[in-house]
């Protein structure tokens, strides 16, 4: 599980522009847009703030996003806010963990698992994020509880698949679960297939800057890691070439690329 954390820590998202709305050309227009579409690019904002928090050892940027989300919650009852707060909580929990604040990290993931669980009529996106955070939470739980959390995560993913069989994030989280399951317990058998599928699917069916689009970059990175782990050098080189082209700023991909060159 520490590997997962390390992976997450070293993510450098390339900040693609997801916005459907035409770009604001003036500060005034930007302000208007921010008021009307406050969640545009929220995923990117969280990722960037997370990177910055590490680089500068200061999570204030990350915390500011949470304040903004809370402020928006007070004004508007938006269902999607529960999702983005949980997404934020996931990154903040990783930050806490990396800074050896394990108690705070555990409390945060527990809080956001509960929060996501309360969503009525969950979507595939809700279930995928729930499974992702549950997976992260396992490291804090005892050996006795871990299998039950895994079982819940598997159940989340099953529901997510039925709701949206073509969601790349669901395939990525499934692959992640398979990748980190010890081989003794049958892990690693479907990682390649699931990640390949995740990469073959569009990040979003219809672009929407307010909705999640993560999963592709993560899938590339995990697939590369998988090929290296399994000693499949040719495949590793091929996927590195693709990944490096699409995400040239990803430190982790480059680091692994150097190992296999």
């Amino acid at each position: 599980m520490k590997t997962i954390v390390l992976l997450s820590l070293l993510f450098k998202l390339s900040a693609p522009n997801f916005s459907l709305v035409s770009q604001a050309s003036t500060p005034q227009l930007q302000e208007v847009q921010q008021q009307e579409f406050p969640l545009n690019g929220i995923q990117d904002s969280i990722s960037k703030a997370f990177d910055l928090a590490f680089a500068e050892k200061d999570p204030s940027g990350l915390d500011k996003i949470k304040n903004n989300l809370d402020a928006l919650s007070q004004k508007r009852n938006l269902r999607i806010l529960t999702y983005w707060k949980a997404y934020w909580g996931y990154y903040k929990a990783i930050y806490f963990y990396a800074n050896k604040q394990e108690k705070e990290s555990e409390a945060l993931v527990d809080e956001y698992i509960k929060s996501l669980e309360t969503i009525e009529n969950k979507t595939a996106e809700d279930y995928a994020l729930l499974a992702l955070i549950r997976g992260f939470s396992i490291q804090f739980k005892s050996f006795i509880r871990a299998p039950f959390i895994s079982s819940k995560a598997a159940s989340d993913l099953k529901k997510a698949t039925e709701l949206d069989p073509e969601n790349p994030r669901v395939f990525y989280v499934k692959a992640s679960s398979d990748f980190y399951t010890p081989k003794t317990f049958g892990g690693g058998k479907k990682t390649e297939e699931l990640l390949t599928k995740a990469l073959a699917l569009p990040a979003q069916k219809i672009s929407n800057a307010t909705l999640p689009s993560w999963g592709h970059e993560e899938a590339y990175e995990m697939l590369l890691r998988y090929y290296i782990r399994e000693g499949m050098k040719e495949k590793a080189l091929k996927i590195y070439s693709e990944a490096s082209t699409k995400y040239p700023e990803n430190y982790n991909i480059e680091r692994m690329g150097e190992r296999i060159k």
Partner: protein
Amino acid sequence: MKTIISLFVTTALYSAMAFPQSITITGTVMDKDEQPIYGANIYPSGNPLKGVISDLDGAFTLELNSAFKNDTLIISYIGFETIRIPIATIEQALSITLKINTQSLSDIQVVARDPIAENFSVKKIEKLDIYTEPLAQADPLKAITILPASTNTDESANPSLRGSDGDRSRVVLNGVPIYEPVRFSQINGTGYFSVLNPEIIKEQYVYASNPPVSLGNSSAGLVQVSTIDKLTFNQLQISTSLASTGAFLSQGISEKTFFQLYGNNQFSKAFIDLNSPNADHLNSFGTQDVGFNIHSDVSKNLSINFFTYTVKEDFNINAQIFTYPGKAIAQTKRNFSILNARYIHSNSIISFNGSYDIRQENFRLGNIDSDNHRFTTYSSLNYQVSLGANTIETGLNHNHNHITIDDQTSEFFYAASPSSPIDSVSSNPRRNSLESFFHVTQKLSESWILSSGIRTNALYNDTNTYWTSQLGIRYYLNNEHSFLLSGGKYHNYNTPNSFNTEYFLQSSYQAALDYTWRGSAHNFYVALFYKKENDNSDIQNLGTRNFLQSSGLEIAYDRIFGNWIKFYTSFSFLDQKEKISGEIYQGTKDLDYFVKSSISYNNPNVVGISFSFITRPGTHYTEITSANYDPNTDFYKPEFSSVINNLSYSEYNILNFSLNKIIPFRDNSIIAFLSVNNLLNTHNEQILNYNRDYTSYEAEPFQLRSVYFGLVLNLNY
């Protein structure tokens, strides 16, 4: 002229190209509660990139050129139904209301949820619980005996819940009742192991009382067991131990189909030799069993499961019936199969469950020679539909039971030597029942869930018509705390045996209040209950039981310390009275305390070690006050106290110990285990064996200290 026309056309075309006609579509997107939907996609079907999203007020403005006038406008948002509007028909601002996509969601909810089990059972036990709880001894039904509601006092696997006889409760496997779900059954139904293998189990829901009307035929509690519907990985498990060898294969056939095949051969010599003299009452025992389970998700909507189990068992033990000591010899052959089919359509499920159970039993001791043939078929057709926050379930089931009892019994109950006079008891009871039920689960709010249901055999019966009815309400204070208040009137048919050779209807009134606190590292549970079980069964030599009344308090607490240590303890108080032939007496299980505790350290990298401890007062029995010599039989005839259950056995205490070590190699593992039952070799009184004239007795104990060990090889591929 041509030039003018040409110029005009050219100018018009130029104008059109330079200033194309545009279409402006405005509107708002709301949900059914008129809350704005922020971020909804609004786009022409021909080019999603030309789309916009709705703002915080749900408002949008979409500018399109005239090329899109024959296109279709799509309004969509995750989790909601998509709306399509021909652009040509749009004349004014749109006011769009998106509906939650209940179609696909309800499919999932129905598939994933069993609202009755999730909200109205008191405990869910998963496969790992069976392995990790020391008191469970890796037996699915013994895993239930750890609960404070379990009042088993005979070390058997047959669930006895809240003071009731085992036959009052039901074990239901994949929707089908399994009568007497135990192995090594004695004439009184006691069996030391269940017929279920933990590897086939997905989960077990326990209803300590108030069994769901959807399953029925229980007037005490119910254990709802389901087999796994997904195989995580292929595995071959080979086990060998002091008293058995076995193999278990879990194999996927395709992405959607898998099977499990297993078999065990149990033998006794090594166990008896090693545990002598504590196992000297055992002459021999043995079991050969084979099980096969196959599951297939035939399509997205249809799944099928088939399970079949065959067992042959025998035992030969030293036993005593009144003053006659002899060898009790028993053989049983049994085969049962269960077929399940479930079809999901829209927001509903149609399910069929069918089974047969054939059993042949023989028991001999002294002049008793009992031959029983049992044949049971069961089929049910159920329909479940989710309507918003409510779930309605209804169904029909047919149960055919046929028992052929061909017994040679003692003519005089106290004279059981082979040469003593005998009576022949032949009986051929049959029971056919067609029962139906109707159940509604209503989610009144986020916190309150109401359950109500009825069940009856009124459509067809060859016994008395009954109406079972129940009401339950679950209150979730928050994610951790919940209360369950439930009550009702329940019915079941008994399972005939050598003492009660006919079917008859039994009933009970029950009420219970359960409180559960599920914390992140601990669970706490308290329950209060009351029940009155009306009866008509023959209590051997003592009369006919009119009713059994039980009330009690249950408390359980478990906590995980750090990563590896788990502690569990429970306390039960059971006040029990029974009315026999018109008089009220103390019940056999009138127990002032019943404490079960365990502590385990399970670190797969180091070792697994556990201790479990049970203590309670002895159960009550009726004193033999005197005996008179009967020259006809050459046996003394005992006279029982006029006060039934006036004495009790000595206090019961047992400490068990187990140890296991996992040795991984490549992707596989070997598990070595050792268990010591009754570590302190406590002499727990089970029954009194009297001398010839009943002037003295020796208490026969439950199993004294015994040692058991073995190896399990897990090959994963």
